[in-house]
């Protein structure tokens, strides 16, 4: 209990669309400990994204409590939430959400601009390091439209890492990627997780969920079941078995 980084109780989220009320979350209880690597699975529309957005403090629940790192998020005001997102959280969107016409480096730097203590030298160093960590250091001058989908996703991941967050949340980070690139992303997540970062991500693919330490299954706005992954895959090993099919690797 004392080392749990996420604790939610009876979390509900309703959407009002005209007369209709959509119950996206119908009372979710979940506890995630520091250093866990959790994959959230479930059918489309089961409330995974809704859940993750609330965990990322991008959205407010209709009811229920959410403790992040021991503090009750519901009691925080907008500015405090912004500060929390800036210092403790890293969010990876399924749609990347990179700023267009902005270089990879500037995209990755962005969160650090909202940290007043960050000197411009350190900001640059950290952004380069984050890009290096995702293997895109040579591409830092490229615009999003000059990068492949996988590369854009990796830039988005670099952006979520750059502020050294305690918790990384990723909504279908491999949704648009081929198998090998997906496993590469998992390798990156696993190495981050090994360094102690807590990671929660959403995926539809059971194979990808096996890289996590725990799986949580959603159904109709509730947790259907949870299980620890017994046959956990190690991404760096899996990569060795996969053929090198990435065209880019041939070019290099």
């Amino acid at each position, binding site marked *: 209990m004392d080392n749990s980084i996420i604790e939610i109780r009876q979390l509900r989220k309703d959407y009002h669309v005209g007369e209709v009320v959509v119950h996206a979350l119908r009372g979710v209880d979940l506890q995630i400990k520091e250093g866990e690597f959790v994959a959230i699975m479930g059918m489309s529309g089961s409330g995974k994204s809704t859940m993750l957005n609330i965990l990322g403090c991008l959205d407010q629940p209709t009811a229920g409590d959410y403790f992040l790192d021991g503090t009750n998020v519901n009691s925080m005001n907008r500015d405090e939430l912004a500060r929390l*997102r800036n210092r403790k959280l890293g*969010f990876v969107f399924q749609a990347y*959400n990179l700023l267009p016409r902005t270089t990879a480096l500037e995209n990755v730097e962005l969160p650090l601009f909202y940290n*007043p203590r960050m000197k411009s030298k350190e900001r640059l160093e950290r952004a380069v390091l984050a890009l290096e960590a995702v293997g895109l250091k040579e591409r830092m001058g490229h615009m999003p439209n000059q990068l492949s989908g996988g590369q854009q996703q990796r830039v988005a991941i670099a952006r979520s890492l750059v502020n050294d967050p305690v918790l990384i949340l990723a909504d279908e980070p491999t949704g648009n990627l081929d198998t090998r690139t997906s496993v590469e992303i998992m390798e990156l997540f696993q190495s981050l997780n090994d360094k102690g970062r807590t990671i929660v991500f959403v995926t539809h693919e059971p194979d990808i969920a096996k890289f996590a330490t725990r799986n949580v299954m959603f159904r109709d706005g509730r947790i259907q079941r949870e299980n620890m992954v017994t046959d956990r895959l190690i991404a760096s090993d899996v990569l060795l078995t996969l053929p090198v099919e990435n065209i880019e690797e041939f070019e290099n």
Partner: protein
Amino acid sequence: MNIKNLLKIAVRALVRNKLRAILTMLGIIIGVASVIAMLAIGEGSKKNIQDEMSSMGTNLIMIMPNMQMRGGVSLGASSSMALKMSDVETLRNEAVYLSAVSPQVSASGQVIYGNQNTQTTVHGVSEEYLDIRKLEIGSGRIFSSSEVRGMSKVCILGTTVVENLFGEGADPVGVTIRIKNLPFEVIGVLEDKGESGMGQDQDDLILAPYTTVQRRLAAIDYINGIYASAVSEEKSTAAADEVTEILRRTHKLKESDEDDFRIMSQSELLETVSSITDIMTYLLGAIAGISLLVGGIGIMNIMFVSVTERTREIGLRMSIGGRSRDILRQFLVESIIMSILGGALGVVFGYLIATAAGTLMGSPVVVTTQSVILAFAVCFVIGVFFGWYPARKAANLNPIDALRYE
């Protein structure tokens, strides 16, 4: 967020959307430039006319016979003969507010020198006339009082007449020309005066002693008008009143009679003219105001449209830790930069347009500080407000709602 970061973010956002920034600035540039140009042209022509007027002498008082119509019937010759040389003498002797008085008798006709001829007006005046009208002798001399008394056939030419008879730049002093077939010796040439504010050529004239013109050219015993100088500009109203009193008395007008003369003082004329030019400035100002409005609406539209476009950007910035106030400050700084840049360019363009228009119209333009400040301030306020205001709505959304905005 510190100022350095804020500036960097805002400048990057502007550079990223150059076209949008340029379009927004264009609205500001057009607004500012048109206001400045319009007001400069208005102000310039006003000043032009005023200068013209005061170069004619602000102390000037003109007394003309009152050729009024009564019931549509002209009172004819009798009224146009109301002023006599004796009136000039009386005014010289009695009026304390007048410093100089000259009669004026006009005759127009053909002037011939050699095989050249021209049509012009000969003004018969006394030697004080040049001082009263602020005319300067360019070369030669003015006629003397003995030449006036002796009805001498001497004359002073305006530069247009010199040009027409002798060619540009010639010095005809000492030459004899024929005015209405009478030989006149040219004793002087007037300084160039140029066109009047009304576009009249002020150099197309000949001056001669009034005695000569009255007897030999016009053959009349009355005079066409009296030109006088008030002792000072402030006294010109008092002088006009005094002249009215003296002339009514000497013309033996009864209480019920209307004046048989008309007094125009230069300062009075100046007021009329400036009220006309004021109207012109207001009109130009109104046109400029409309362009300002159009520019403003342009700015407004682009800002509104771009914020819709940028709501996702706002959502992203909030989701990575930007506070609402950081977002708003960014938009504020962006629009301040655009407004200042656009405003400065607008001032430059406005100045250039005004100068170009001035050269084309041949009149000076006056770019006043007020017009610059006014135009700049209005566009600045519009630009900054509409840069900031639409962003406010987006910055108050949940990050996820802003990100999902379509």
